[in-house]
């Protein structure tokens, strides 16, 4: 039986290998390349997407678990040309170096700020666990705070 879910608001159904991780459906079947493959074991967070609003590591989410799910990827974050405040903050703080992990960092941050709209440094330390090999953490921290501020005054 087909598994039905939505990705960025569009309905999709899936009939293939139910053990396949969501990551590969997004990248290879849905044509959404913004979600990245980094480690395959849920460690690095480059593949972070939202599943019913929560940040999950899509390399470790099997297709079998997705019936009725609502999935948002980095491609679904902006509204038309209007970037999400977190995306804006990432540009304003000039966070990306190579850029590979940043979609995952942004998705993790968007979910984090929903639960923790006014985060302390400790909140950030505990709530953001994605890996960045360029070491952009200093600017990520600033961007998270800037986004939080912008979202509160918006």
């Amino acid at each position, binding site marked *: 039986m087909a598994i039905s879910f939505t990705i960025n608001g569009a309905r999709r159904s899936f009939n293939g290998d139910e053990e*396949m991780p969501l990551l590969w459906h997004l990248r290879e079947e849905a*044509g959404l390349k913004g979600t990245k493959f980094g480690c395959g074991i849920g460690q690095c967070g480059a593949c972070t997407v939202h599943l019913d609003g929560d940040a999950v590591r899509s390399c470790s989410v099997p297709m079998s678990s997705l019936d009725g799910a609502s999935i948002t990827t980095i491609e679904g974050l902006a509204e038309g040309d209007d970037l999400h405040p977190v995306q804006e903050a990432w540009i304003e703080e000039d966070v990306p*170096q190579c850029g590979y992990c940043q979609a995952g960092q942004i998705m993790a941050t968007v979910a984090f700020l929903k639960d923790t709209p006014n985060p302390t440094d400790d909140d950030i330390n505990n709530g953001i666990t994605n890996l960045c*090999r360029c*070491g952009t*953490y200093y600017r990520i921290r600033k961007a998270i705070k800037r986004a939080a501020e912008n979202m509160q005054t918006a």
Partner: protein
Amino acid sequence: MTNLSRRTFIKSGAGLASFAILVSANPRLARSNDTGHITDIGPCLRFSDDGSTVLCVPTPDMGQGIMTAAAQVIAEEMDIDLNAVSVEFMPFIGIIDDEGIARDKDLTQGAGGSHSMMDLWPALRKTAAYSRALLVEAAAQKWGIDASKLSTLDGHVIDAGGRKLAYKDLVATVDINLDQSAVTPKPIKDYKVIGKDARNVAALDIVTGKPVFSLDVDVPGTLHAVIRRCPHLIGKVKSYNEDEVASMEGVKAVVKMDQVLEEDGWRTIADGVAIIADTYWHARQAADALTIEWDGSAATEDDTNIILDKCEALTKTEKLKEVARNGNPEEAFNAAAKVIDVTYTHPSWAHACIEPHNCTAHVNGNSAEVWVGHQNTTRIANIVKRFADVDAANVNTHMYRMGTGFGRKYVQDFVAEAVMLSKKMQAPVKVTWSREDEIEQDYPNHMGAYRVKAAIDKDDNLSGWHIKTALDTGRDWVAKDFPTTAVANSLGEVVSVPNNISHGAWRGPSHNTGAWVVQSALSEAAYAAGKDPYDFLIALYGKSGTIQTPDWPNMDVNYDRHVALLEKVALASEYGKEMPDGWGQGIAVHHTFVSACAHVVDLEMIGDNDYRVHKVTSAIDCGLAVNPLGIRAQVESGIMDGLCAAKYGKLVFEAGVPITNNFDTYQKMRIDEAPPIVNIHIMDFGDTEPRGTGEVSLPPIIPALTNAIFAASGKRIRSLPISESLETA
């Protein structure tokens, strides 16, 4: 320098107004090509179908920011608003030599050694300035007035009366012969873009998830390859269950991959088995279902602990190979009031490039197309020539951003695999590595032991320096460099301890750990002399002298720059201030290639066996600063990379097999361990040319860290990683 054997505006077909300046007689540039716009792409500027302007930069970007900085140089010399253009990578624009080898011509197309900007600086400015001059001349002819009466602004040629012509409307109009030597780049005083902060030009694409990496490439008809490579450092396939996996869903072929070793034993292709399938997931599934019996008997002695023990033992032997000597070190040690004798060791580090290696290749008879993120554009054509027997001139390479590189993405292997498999399958083939592949098949940093003896004379000065290095590479730089060169009586000795590890360049090769050894030992010597390490370093670098680099004969690093860097970070960090118990500051300085950087680390011990870095204060000398915002990003990056490698970096080999192969066993730092405050000062010593940046901040951060741990806890870190050695230090 630039050989402009042909120069003209070229009008292309299909309404694509393009502007080309040919920087060489390379036949590829003049040849029509049905798969790209090779004839239409000038080195620096291209107009797309929709009339938008595209700046083209020559050098690959792995996060070091050359795409942005090179675009700034072009924008400066051509008077283009960076915000009004997009930026992409140039295809290969070099030459094919008489032996059929692709080579760089004027514009370098490789990234490494922190010298992309140094390499590009003269030729790129000249090329861009010449491009601007041609556009001005075109407008002058169109208006029938003298070019000297015209100027340029934001992508337009303008005259005194206010008339404007957009660059894109000036192409394809006239044939111009303009003497290239009559054109000179702008003087520094006129810069409006160079020297100003510019954000990453790819940022919008990155934060919206655009497919800017080669892993994102989808070439129609592509077959997917997943390769099971021999996990042994040197080893071969004995047997595998081909029949079982060949019938699995989507599998097109099961291909034996044959090991390719270079003459020195360096591994270029690992022995293994490739699954070729219709989708990545099918290939992955079948590869996981492979049962392979390996023969790893050739490398069972390669074991991290055995190698390190052997290295350390060798530093205790009487005499190694002497590579440097000054004055009379024996006498200096005999006459010394105090001698310190300390040994440092460190294991190998993996690159752990965040984007696992991948490449898509389509070999079609005697031509080929390659889609890849790689540190050297020019090298791709030569890899295809070697592994698929295609003329280098017939290789069309599409360069993508790299999800980091650190030196690893300069290697041939992942490109060669895709090329060989595409030739075999006669179809486009995409090879995707797993994280485990990326770490197991790495070309890691060296490991080894360093024994340092320092003599302190009766006046508490450093009077002798004796360093013995035993490393698992042939590198002898640490024994020969500062302070061996600076101390009146010094001796450098080396021995190499060969093994089956294929080593590679890891951000700041040799410097990355050499600076830790030297700056730690100098700190130990300072305390032995009863001096603060800062005062000790100022005294040592205060003697006049230079660091000379043969590759860059005109770019010596004078010691007075080290002094200025140290003074800057000491002042800015309030070095020496009172701190609570369990807190400490550490200072270090180091030159990497022809640049230099100093740091002060402020940290707090967390119990006996952990610590947090609260602040890093840095000063960098990277010559003329093209993009200060990007330079600060690179300094921040090197700090993080160094802090992380020092604390956790340990690629463990057991019986010839790397057993730490993903982020669960090969640990990397997250935001909770990143310093929340990083204050960076970019020094201006009046250079009129850039030096390097990407690797420069990493080497000195490790000794600044371990010196701070000593100041805070009295524990001297003499072996890495710190996470393992702090407890027993």
